[in-house]
Each structure stands twice: as C-alpha cells, then as structure tokens.
C-alpha cells in the first residue's frame, strides 16, 4: 500500500507548455504582486513556481500615482499604483540577475503607451538573457487613442498583439482586461493575432468613496479590483475564454487556496497566477502548489492535464437529462 502511494506521488505530472514556455508546475505569480522577486525571497523559495511574472515594466521608469493608492473593499482590494516601475534598463541591470538564476522561468510583464513602445520593449527583451517569455498587459491607456485601453476593443488588441508578435522572439502571453462586453471575442482576436497564450483576468475597474471627506478614496479616483471578491467573475471569464480559443489559458483572480486554483483549472486554465493572496501570506504559492499535488493524488489523477476544462462536455449531458 505505502509503496503504491509512493509511486503515485512520483507520477503526478504537473508540467505544461504555455506557448513555448515549459513550466514544471501550474503555479505562477501575478504581475505587480510579487515585486521583482527579491522582496519575496525571505519568505518563499523562488524556485517554487512554474513561472515568476514580475511587476509590469515600461521603457522608461515610472513614478506611479500619488497616494492613496490602495483601498480595501469586502473581500477585495482596489489599487491604482499607476504602474510605478524601475524601467527596462534598471530591471535588466539590477533586478534580473537575482531572478534569472532563481530556478523558476521569468516572464516579464510589459506595457506601453503606444504600440511602438510595446514593440521596442519586446524586441529589447528578446536580446536579454534569462527571460522565458513576455506577458503583454493590454489594460493600459493608449495615449494615441485618447487614453482608451488597448484591451477594450478586439481590433485594438489584435493590432497590438500582431505588432508585438512581429518584434518579439519570445513567447507572448496576452493578459486580457475583464472590462469588456465579451471576453470570448477578445480572446479569439488575440489568438488570431498570434498570441501564444492568454492570461486573465486583470483587475476590474472599481471605485470607492470616503463619505466623511466626500472624496474618492483613491487619488486616481478609479482603480482595479482584485482579490477573492472577483473570483467568481474570473472563473466565468476563464471558462468562456477557454471555450473560445485553442491556445493555453492562464487563470487569474482571487486565488487564495489550492481549491481556488483547481477551480480555475477545471474551468479550463492550464496554469494559474496568484496575485493579492501574496500580500496576505507570502508563502501562499507553496501552499497552493502542495495542495494541488495532494488533490491530484487523493483523487488518483495522474496528470494535471486530465482535469483541465474537464467539465466542458459534462454540462451538456447534465442539461439534456433534466427538464427544467
């Protein structure tokens, strides 16, 4: 008995290929919630992860928004950090050295204000050693389109991804904005544009007001909602997106436990990213990973891929057999 279980343990296969990035397990860090890795290394072994996705990087350093930048809401957090970051050069010179030997592939989340900026970033990163892939944050205001996000209209996203794909040698994961009418359309259009994978969801735009001061709680007025509050919305969107595209889907949004991660996987995600939960428990990544392993073992599932999107067929049967 003991032996059989031992064998099972070893046989659980957690690896996946995300559009060219081979990951040893499906647990990734979400951009902007794990710093550049160095902040987290006192708490968690950086080699734990399937991939580490770093804070969004722009060509030039960015100051970010004035405070208040964050506000807590029921089971959620609104942030308007304003994409503060050290910029590409400092990232490569100062931050990457620690990361590139950390034992987990590094995926760089990038953003720009114009398509050219994105392309230049992607191209430059292509020449840097130790980067496994790029995650395109398309929830950014497009200055050329009057501040409208790239990620709001399928055509805009298509154009951006297409251009970046031409400039980049690295695998591209497009990170979708949930602030759209139909996530399937968005996912399909970036797939068509050549994206190697999609990740979703980014934060949902939200607002909170201090009724004593009668002022928005965030300096920036509007920010992005993350955390467990948004999980049911994120799971639905992952379910929809996974049904619409053939490229790998990475699930993000309110993952706090391994159960939540499995939920996204069953909905169709090949991997997950943990965001806000890192703020509450910096060792959460390891806990989620261990939990996934235990779940698979105790349910005698040998490959993670056996349960990715596994409810899809089932549902039609379920509904056919009932008469509402």
């Amino acid at each position, binding site marked *: 008995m003991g032996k059989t279980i031992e064998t099972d343990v070893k046989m659980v296969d957690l690896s996946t290929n995300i559009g060219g990035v081979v990951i040893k397990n499906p647990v990734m860090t979400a951009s902007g919630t794990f710093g550049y890795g160095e902040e987290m290394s006192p*708490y968690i072994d950086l080699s734990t992860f399937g991939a580490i996705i770093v804070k969004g990087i722009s060509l030039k350093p960015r*100051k970010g928004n004035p*405070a208040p930048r964050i*506000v807590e809401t029921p089971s959620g957090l609104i942030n308007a950090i304003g994409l503060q970051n050290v910029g590409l050069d400092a990232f490569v010179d100062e931050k990457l050295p620690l990361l590139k030997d950390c034992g987990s592939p590094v995926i760089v989340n990038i953003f720009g204000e114009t398509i050219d900026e994105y392309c230049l970033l992607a191209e430059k990163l292509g020449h840097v050693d130790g980067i496994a892939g790029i995650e395109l944050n398309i929830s950014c205001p497009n200055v050329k389109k009057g501040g409208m996000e790239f990620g709001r209209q399928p055509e805009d996203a298509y154009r951006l991804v297409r251009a970046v794909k031409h400039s980049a040698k690295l695998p591209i994961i497009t990170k979708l904005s949930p602030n759209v009418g139909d996530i399937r359309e968005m996912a399909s259009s970036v797939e068509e544009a050549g994206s190697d994978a999609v990740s979703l969801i980014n934060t949902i735009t939200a607002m909170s007001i201090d009724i004593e001061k009668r002022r928005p709680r965030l300096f920036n007025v509007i920010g992005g909602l993350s955390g467990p509050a948004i999980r049911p919305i994120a799971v639905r969107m992952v379910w929809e997106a996974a049904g619409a595209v053939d490229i790998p889907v990475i699930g993000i949004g309110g993952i706090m436990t391994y159960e939540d991660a499995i939920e996204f996987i069953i909905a169709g995600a090949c991997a997950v990213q943990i965001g806000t939960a890192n703020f509450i428990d910096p060792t959460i990544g390891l806990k989620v990973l261990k939990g996934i392993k235990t779940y698979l073992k105790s349910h005698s599932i040998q490959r993670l891929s056996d349960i990715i999107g596994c409810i899809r067929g089932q549902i039609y049967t379920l509904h056919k057999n009932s008469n509402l």
Partner: protein
Amino acid sequence: MKQVIGKVLYNSEISQSYFKMGIACSDVASSILPGQFFMLRAWSDTEYDPLLNRPFGVYRVIGEEEGVEILYRVVGRGTRIMSQLRHRDFVGLIGPLGKGFPIYEYGDSVAMISGGVGIAPFYFFTQWIRNKKSYNLPITLYHGGSGMDDMVCIEDFEALGVEIKSSTEDGSVGFKGYVTDNLRKDLEKKNIMPSFMLACGPKAMLKEVALMALKDDIPCFVSIDSVMGCGIGTCLGCVVKTRKKDKSKADTEFEYTRVCMEGPVFDVKDILWEKL
C-alpha cells in the same frame, strides 16, 4: 522577518478604545528593533472580509523575549476584531518589518512627540536607549490627544525617567491645545532644544513637527503611518513622496518610496512635506 503564528496571552482595554495585547511569539521577539512593525491578522486566513493584514508597531518585548506587547486603538473593523480576541486565541504575524529608529548616538537630549496611539513605538525605543546608554540621557515625551482617554501609558514612561508633557485638545489634562503647539511653545522659548526629535502620529502632526525641526535644524525622525497592502514591499501601496537621492535633483524632483521597506521611520529631510 518571518511568518509565525502568535498566541494571545492577554488583551485588555486600558482606556476607552485603547488596548494592550500580549502575544507569545518567541521566534521573532528577540530580533525586533525599536520602530519596526508587524503585519497582524486577527482573523482566520480563510475569511476574506476584512481582507488585508494590519500593521502594528511593538510597544515592548515581554517575558524574556517570549513575546510582544502591542498597544492599539480600535478605529475600524480590523482593530474591532482584534479587541475581541481572548487568551489562547491565535493571530498571524509577519515581521519584524521595516527600518526602525536609527541607531545613533542621540546626543544630549531627546524629545519624542506623539499623538494618540502614536505613543506606541516610543516605549520600546526608550527602553532600548536606557539600556544602551550608561549615562542618564534626558528624554521628554510630548504626548497629545483629544482628551483624557488618550493619555495612556504615561506611568510606563515615567517609570523609565521620561519627562512627560501632556496636552489635550479639550484641556482636560495638561496643556490645552495640540501637541505641536505645546512643543512649539517650548522650542520658541529656547529653554528646551533637544539634540534629537522623534515623532509618531497623524500625518498633519508629523508635518508640523518636521517643519519646526527643519527650521531649528534639529535632527528629526518620524514614523509615518500609511495604509499598507502587504507590509513587505511588493504592492507599492504604502508610498510617500521623498526627495530624489541624487542631490542635484533633491529640491525639485521626487520619487515614491515605500513606507514598509524604506520606512516607516524617515529622516524629515527626506520627505517632501509640501506635497504630503
């Protein structure tokens, strides 16, 4: 810094809405420096409302480094939940975090200025300075609040030979008015001119103290309160405006600096007070 589970030893209301909580946490108690803080979770980590951990300084280390005592004030949901904890309940702790008060020769005399629960970090600091110094450095505590209820822990400081200058907005105890007015009065009379000032309290108070210190050229450090998402440097939610380190740009340009990592204690010279 570590992530540990602490066990509540006691938790009692010492004044209207002020509590002292003792927490057993021997793994971390010995390494704390005055002015550092912990992220604390007084509720289960599977309940997400409230969602975030809360930052708290250390009032003192207790029981031969077996634990910490926190002085806190109930101001919202998280602190209300804290106030309901009882002996043997558990809390989550991450810390000690941040940079504490600078480890200096504090010169001839120190003035500590606190508003309300801002008094919290100064007891541990005073203990530490009393231990380091063989001579009896004069320390004055300017402590202010809105009324009598805010005059907490005074005896503790007196026992360490700290001179107390109380002030209340309603005049019920000590000087009537703001703690900064009480301080200004003394500084202007020049009968007191501390070689160092330390302050902790609301931002508006810190700013006034800072401006006085800068004017009189007294070295001054303040512990800045900020809403914290993580406390460990990753969310970038806790920032304050500081001068660019590059000297040539220090007067005109600023950057956003994390209170949790680069603070919570800052040299008043580094903060852009006009833009706070």
